[in-house]
């Protein structure tokens, strides 16, 4: 079963609009972090946001924010005032602290490809 679910595989918007990308996750761990990454057309993967239990780190300044609903196990990325440069693929990822001693690694969703039209 998928642990990180991004429902929309592709979407498109007009320049200037506001967009919300949804992500839901499954975990039974007490401590976990969530991430939003952007995969650029150049191939580079850029960290946008890191959501920790009670704080959020915005790694890339700009028009990004999140709506984090812990009880619903949902974290949405909000991009305001879209620009053509926002086009790319956005990945949600879950990192869980496993107390079993096994390696803690990121689990990625399938990603949502965004096209912003001028």
């Amino acid at each position, binding site marked *: 079963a998928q642990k*990180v679910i991004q429902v929309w*595989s592709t979407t498109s918007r007009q320049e200037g609009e506001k967009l919300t990308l949804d992500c839901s996750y499954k975990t039974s761990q007490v401590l976990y*972090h969530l*991430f939003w*990454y952007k*995969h*650029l057309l*150049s*191939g*580079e*993967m*850029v*960290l946008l946001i*890191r959501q920790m239990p009670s704080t959020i780190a915005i790694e890339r300044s700009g028009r990004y924010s999140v709506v984090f609903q812990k009880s619903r196990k949902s974290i949405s990325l909000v991009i305001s005032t879209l620009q053509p440069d926002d086009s790319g693929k956005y*990945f949600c990822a879950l*990192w869980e*602290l496993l107390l079993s*001693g096994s*390696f*803690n*690694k*990121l*689990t*990625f*969703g*399938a*990603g949502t490809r965004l096209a912003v039209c001028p």
Partner: protein
Amino acid sequence: GGIITQTPKFLIGQEGQKLTLKCQQNFNHDTMYWYRQDSGKGLRLIYYSITENDLQKGDLSEGYDASREKKSSFSLTVTSAQKNEMAVFLCASSPGGPVAETLYFGSGTRLTVL
């Protein structure tokens, strides 16, 4: 800041070929990773390495070998390329040991097999 450099950027191979992808990082990070991205799928972990000379299999290790001879470099070998295979291979590193979390990625190697 640091940077992760992946070479080559594009790799075109023939079916059955052995192909090697290279990755260098100057963050001085302990942990390095190789992920594969296919269209419509999330990133899947192929191999990771917690320190120099360490190798750990990920979820998709079959058909691949890896090598971490230096802390700064991590290479991945496709042991026998599959016909019509197309994917992006992403190298990443992180500062922590077994509690790694924030990953920093390279720009990727796009593989096409004819």
